[in-house]
């Protein structure tokens, strides 16, 4: 029988229990696992800041008049910083954190290809975050996260310059990280793992990294010109001096549309892992999912002008409408493949699975409103209204953030050796799911009724719906603290688990939790099919894994928190 039945080759000596200390996480380290955790914790910190800004926005919008802000400019700063923090300091670094932690483990490698570069890329993020937030004190940026000139050149105070510098640093960090991922994935796969045996998360990171290498430099170029305009007296974006405002919009969206896939593709990878593992079923359409990531990466470069339907020459609208609708196809392929994975599976309703299912339902709503926005007549009607706000929160919160939550519940045991509390997790899920829906779904209606985005003072006819949105948003804000409490609580008191609590077939589980400094003692052997659940070989492999890394015995049975036993592989 040529099949692989045990995970480890050669070494049989026991692995010393790793004991990373907190201090290791606070200083320069070239261990990809420490860097991964540094990314994750840093971005959680910025998530709280971005969330607090969102709460202030919703507080302001409780009534049609000015409540919190003394003028419109202050409100402008609130949503500018909220958007920038959430995108560039929460979602993107969080995905990079998962990538850093998991990709070398999934490849059975000891570390990334360039450990030093990896650490350097991370350490660009804290100074960037500080620069951005310092802007608050010297006159915060007011031009929105898209920072269109002339708002960002002629009207925004000095904080806008710091904003541009911060994004510059984050862009460089992103490019360096992506180069590292591509080289690692291409050159450090173990023997027996071709591209078509890679876990889908690795595929997703590869597609993301390709976008980052080729799209982020557009942002770098645009920001360079913006900074020159602000400090060096050029006028690239000033039409009164021979410049062109549309130049910014074109170049910015040429980065930022692909960037929305930077924010979601790694999550698509994560959900593929979670669904197959917790439904105990081979992933449906492995190649379709892998290739559709690549298709999204490619087509993502051809749709940028759909952000500019109202600004662009009318004859360019139809071509961009067509490409924007085409990009829904590979995403649809993924959605149906995931549904196919669930079909007939033994679904374990763990919190990771619940968030993955929550993602499927909510992301589809965001996808549908995306296709609506791609069609020119609808877009012109709802342009710059809350319909747009609703759409991108459905794909970013209902998409990326749900997937991040799912990933945290799924991989926390690997990172810490302890489970996240499942009861708290379910509470977290239910409250998040409901309050998320009532925060963002009514925004569709407000938008269709004509409520513009980015305003602090609105027509009193929108009062009721805004109060519903705000109160739901406050609940949604509170749910974050359930997760944060769970993370801290479970870190010290969570149920201890062995190497592979979910009985997953990918390689990151074929070592202790948490893994030792160089990940594996001996060279791990990948199971021939990372999603080959439900076969005798898979059961044999997983049993051998349990014998190799025996799960901790639950001595005081009362201390053990019940969690679903994933039986039957």
């Amino acid at each position, binding site marked *: *029988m040529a099949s692989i039945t045990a995970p480890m080759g050669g070494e049989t000596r026991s692995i010393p229990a790793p004991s990373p200390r907190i201090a290791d996480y606070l200083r320069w380290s070239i261990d990809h696992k420490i860097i991964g955790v540094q990314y994750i914790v840093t971005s959680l910190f910025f998530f709280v800041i971005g969330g607090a800004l969102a709460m202030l926005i919703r507080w302001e919008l409780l009534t049609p008049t000015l409540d919190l802000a003394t003028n419109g400019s202050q409100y402008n700063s609130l949503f500018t910083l909220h958007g920038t923090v959430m995108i560039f300091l929460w979602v993107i670094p969080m995905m990079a954190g998962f990538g850093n932690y998991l990709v070398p483990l999934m490849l059975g490698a000891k570390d990334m290809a360039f450990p030093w570069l990896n650490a350097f890329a991370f350490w660009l993020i804290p100074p960037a975050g500080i620069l951005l937030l310092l802007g608050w004190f010297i006159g915060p940026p007011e031009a929105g996260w898209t920072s269109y000139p002339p708002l960002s050149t002629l009207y925004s105070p000095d904080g806008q310059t710091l904003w541009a510098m911060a994004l510059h640093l984050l862009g460089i960090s992103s490019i360096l990280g992506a*180069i*590292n991922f591509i*080289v690692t994935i291409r050159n450090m796969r173990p023997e027996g793992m071709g591209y078509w045996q890679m876990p889908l998360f690795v595929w997703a990171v590869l597609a993301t990294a390709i976008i980052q290498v*080729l799209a982020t430099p557009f942002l770098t170029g645009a920001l360079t*010109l913006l900074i*020159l305009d602000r400090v060096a007296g050029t*006028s690239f974006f000033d039409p009164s001096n021979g410049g062109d405002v549309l130049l910014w919009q074109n170049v910015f969206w040429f980065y930022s549309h692909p960037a929305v896939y930077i924010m979601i593709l790694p999550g698509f990878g994560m959900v593929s892992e979670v669904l197959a593992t917790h439904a105990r079923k081979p992933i449906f359409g492995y190649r379709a999912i892998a290739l559709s990531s690549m298709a999204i990466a490619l087509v993502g470069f051809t749709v940028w002008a759909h952000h500019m339907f109202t600004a662009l020459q009318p004859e360019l609208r139809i071509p961009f409408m067509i490409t924007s609708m085409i990009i829904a196809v590979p995403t649809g392929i993924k959605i149906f493949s995931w549904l196919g994975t669930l079909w007939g599976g033994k679904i374990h309703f763990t919190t990771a699975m619940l968030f993955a299912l929550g993602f499927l339902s909510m992301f589809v709503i965001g996808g549908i409103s995306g296709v609506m926005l791609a069609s020119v007549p609808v877009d012109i009607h709802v342009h710059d209204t809350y319909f747009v706000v609703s759409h991108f929160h459905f794909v970013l919160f209902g998409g990326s953030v749900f997937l991040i939550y799912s990933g945290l519940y799924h991989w926390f045991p690997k990172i810490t050796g302890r489970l996240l509390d499942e009861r708290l997790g379910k509470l977290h899920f239910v409250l998040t799911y409901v309050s998320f829906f009532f925060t963002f779904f009514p925004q569709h209606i407000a938008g269709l009724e004509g409520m513009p985005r980015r305003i602090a003072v609105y027509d009193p006819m929108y009062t009721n719906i805004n109060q519903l949105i705000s109160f739901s948003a406050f609940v949604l804000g509170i749910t974050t603290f359930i997760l944060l409490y769970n993370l801290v609580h479970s870190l010290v008191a969570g149920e201890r688990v062995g190497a592979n609590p979910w009985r997953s077939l990918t390689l990151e589980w074929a070592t202790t939790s948490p893994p030792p400094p160089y990940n594996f003692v001996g060279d791990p*052997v990948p199971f021939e099919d990372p999603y080959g659940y439900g076969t005798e070989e898979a059961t044999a492999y997983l049993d051998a894994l349990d014998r190799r890394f025996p799960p901790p015995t639950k001595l005081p049975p009362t201390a053990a928190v019940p969690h679903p036993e994933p039986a039957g592989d």
Partner: protein
Amino acid sequence: MSEMSLEHAAAHAEHHNVPSPQTISNAKLAMWLYLASEVVIFATLIAVYLIFRSNYPEEVKTVHRELGLVLVSINTFVLLTSSWAMVMGLREAQKNNSQGLVRWIGLTALLGAAFVGLQGVEYTELAHAGISIGTEFGMRFYAPTAFHGAHVIVGVLWALRVAARGRKGYFNAQNFLGVEIFGLYWHFVDVVWLFLFTIIYLI
């Protein structure tokens, strides 16, 4: 099946532990990817110039008369020569000749520095002619050329480092990857200049 022993797994793993064949080294692949992202940045800056060029051809022609081609042609020649010196340096490394390597890479650095110096001379002349960074042509001219100049400066510093390591005998016929990687960067900077020279000065 489920009682398969770990010894079997070990034997099985034997033939699995051969390191993956790599057709391109990590460092070289990373450099190519880095250069790909650089291409995008330069393309953005060049596009900004080209849009202006096609909208205001007359204005650009006036500036062209101002600029002249003598100085910049000499400068282009200097940079091309430096790429040749770079190639020769790599050849010496492959022939195990550290001294030759240091000499040629030193020449590369010298020519690179000369390029930056001549660019400085040209900038001064242009400033005298009233073409500052605040003018419509000026900003679109200085942004890409100065960005390129910054790349040349980085390249010169890098060349000096390669030369210093070469002096210590770090490179030889088996180990010349460091020279090759620098070469990729240096040739890239050279090629970008050929684009800038053609697009900004010639057409």
